[in-house]
């Protein structure tokens, strides 16, 4: 009897200690000073996201002399919502999520984008067994009717919105695919893997992800090929809250923008950041550049 209790107590203490360690390792301490909270839509693996945004946070901290914290968010709508509820100050959004976030957050503005974002592309890839030819003209997308087709994440601009838009222009509705609906693989990498395996015959993904997988030797070109590249459109950009100047001092937003734009390959850290973002440099970004995305978003029903 006593033995039972002693065992139970020891067992419980072991469990309790786990929590106490947690208490020391506290991630959620209430901020005593203003902290600039940055985040990003999760379109890469967490280890890479962490490396990327922690390096960026420390570089911005150095340049701007304010406290900066990277808060990971793991799905697209959650990033939009956390921005809307002002839990995040500066977020790396895709085209569509950026518009969704700005529409829901009065005063929020597009700040900067990468050089590649002003001419971004998606690629349609097909499994070679599907015998689909390379498509020369947009209207050729009609060939995809009746195929097993997958998008990436529901809210992805390059993995869903723009591909769906071009399909629609070619007269292909999402109900025209085999099974009556396309799949939603959840990410660009997953789309690639699923098309390569043949479970889906065709898929659409971010060109940048396709190219980086290609350079890393992760694509089996005997199994999968690009059949079409979309026309260019605006994609990823940093979006900021409107209250940064009042919280961090006059002109802070402008300073933030200039810091991004000044990133260059002479500094080792900045070079690393640019490489991780897959960019040569950051350039200014403006709300109006996303008017088309907003229009398409409304047509497709992703913006209400």
């Amino acid at each position, binding site marked *: 009897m006593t033995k039972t209790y002693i065992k139970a107590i020891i067992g419980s203490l072991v469990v309790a200690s786990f*929590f106490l360690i947690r208490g020391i390792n506290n*991630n959620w*301490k209430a901020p005593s000073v203003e902290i600039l909270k940055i985040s990003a839509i999760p379109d890469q693996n967490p280890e890479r996201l962490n490396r990327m945004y922690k390096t960026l946070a420390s570089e911005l901290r150095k340049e701007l002399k304010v406290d900066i914290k990277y808060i990971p968010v793991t799905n697209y709508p959650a990033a939009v919502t956390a921005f809307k*509820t002002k839990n995040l100050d500066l977020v790396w959004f895709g085209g569509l999520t950026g518009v969704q976030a700005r529409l829901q957050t009065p005063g929020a503005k597009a700040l900067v984008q990468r050089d590649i974002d002003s001419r971004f592309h998606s690629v349609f890839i097909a499994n070679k067994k599907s015998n689909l030819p390379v498509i020369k003209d947009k209207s050729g997308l009609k060939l995809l009717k009746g195929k097993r087709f997958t998008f990436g994440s529901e809210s992805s601009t390059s993995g869903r919105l723009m591909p769906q838009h071009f399909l629609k222009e070619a007269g292909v509705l*999402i109900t025209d695919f085999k099974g009556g609906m396309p799949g939603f693989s959840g990410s660009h*990498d*997953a789309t690639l893997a699923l098309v*390569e395996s043949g479970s889906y015959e065709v898929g659409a993904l971010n060109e940048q992800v396709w190219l980086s997988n290609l350079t890393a030797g992760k694509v089996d070109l005997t199994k999968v090929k690009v059949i079409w590249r979309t026309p260019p459109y605006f994609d990823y950009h940093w979006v900021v809250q409107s209250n940064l100047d009042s919280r961090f001092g006059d002109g802070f937003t402008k300073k933030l923008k200039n810091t991004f734009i000044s990133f260059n390959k002479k500094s080792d850290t900045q070079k690393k950041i640019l490489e991780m973002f897959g960019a040569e440099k950051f350039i200014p970004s403006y709300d109006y550049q996303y008017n088309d995305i907003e229009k398409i978003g409304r047509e497709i*029903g992703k913006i209400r």
Partner: protein
Amino acid sequence: MLSKLNLNSPIACFVPLVAVVPIIKNVSTDLHPGGLSTLYNFFSAALFPSLNEVVLKNAISGMQTTICIAFVGWIISIINGLFLGIICSNTFIKTFENPKIIQKILKGLLAIPRGIHELIWGFFLLQIYGLTPWVAVLAISIPYSSLMARVISDQVDSLNLKAIHAMKISGIDSLKVFITVLYPKLIPIIITFGGYRLECALRGATLLGVFGLGGIGTELLLSIQSLQFREVWTSLWILGIVVFSLEKLINQFQKRVAQVRSSRSYSISFIFAITLSSIISISCLNSIDIYSSIKTIPLILPPITEFIAAITSLSLIKLIYETIVMTILAAGLAIGVPPLMAILFPSKMGSNVISIIWLILRIIPAPLIALLLLLSINPSVSVAALALGLNNMGVMGKILKENIERADHSTYAAIKKIGCNESIAWLYGKLSFQTASYLAYSFYRVDVILRETAVIGIVGGIGLGWQLQESLSSFAWAEVLVVVTSFVLLTVIGELISEKLKSNLIKHSLSANISYQ
């Protein structure tokens, strides 16, 4: 008609296996070898999880956050569930002579929180409270409170009413009667079922990692989506070790309690468990900074016209049909396979190997199972059902095994002595006594599977669950509410059917055996 079904023969456990037929039929025609190399990479990565410092540190701190959220959410749900469950029970109504209609309404209302998956609660609450740890805690505790309430009220109603009646006739005050009769009966239920709910809470909190609370789910899902299999395995191993130790710990605790028969000792262990749990949860509250200021963000209800538009634009009938098919197939698989496996491999070795398989299936979230399956099977409802079924099979298998281990095995020994083989002895000596409680538990599992159809959109835009994700990511609130309402209605209908079936079961089994319902 339903009440005439005989669910007490051990054969009844195998009826759900019917669902396996269409799944095997579809899957076998859609099977292809295209994803074998990716699958090989996935499984071989198990032996070489990433030990990169950042990955490891994130995974461990993520695990801690997940445990905290699970624990606090769990303790809240136990307390609420106990209270609500008793109020909703027929026994309570009869003891206090309250009007039945109140109980009916309350019971109906409680189906709402239950019909909505933790993830969906998480997203709703995120809209209202922003990114705070409260969101995850509440997202767990709201549906779990209601589930606990349902179990408690079923259990209370399976108790012997004669004692209550006798005491009331002798003029004792209703409240006193109620406490005297109920108290010693309820504690073991809380300890066994409650312990089991803690495991569920841990799984739920893992899935909730999706909301940027930094839990292990965050690490897991992102590394899955980017196909970083070695990083996936870092998280899976940690999760596996924690789930395994927690289950063992709970199991030990339950065994000790089961040995202690007097109600005094029950009380002592109960008070001990509650105190300890509270202390732990307070330290958790501290560590996830639950005291940080909470601001609510007003939600504006969309106008009626939008609701009408949503109802007409969504193909609700098709979505509901797909959801039901998926749920039934997955449930059949999850319920039917564990007894079959147990009967095919009755040896000690076999049963241990199977236990490990169940553990693996339990800890791998359904969306990951779906992705892995999709690498080698063309998308269809069957694949979605298979993924959900496999994940839940892990839970059902564990419950079956524990129930059987806990039971008295004299009949089994007797049957074996007369020369029957191991499988037959197992069927009639062990399974037949557990049939009723296993099936009763299965009904709760069907609920869970129904809700989990929400996380399986990868398989090709199937069902209400996918529509919910789509509407949520479009911030189309009217559609979201329509879909959620459909989920709730399905849950209520499911419960009405299972209640009919269960009233038959409870009579035969549960008054003494409190194991896992």
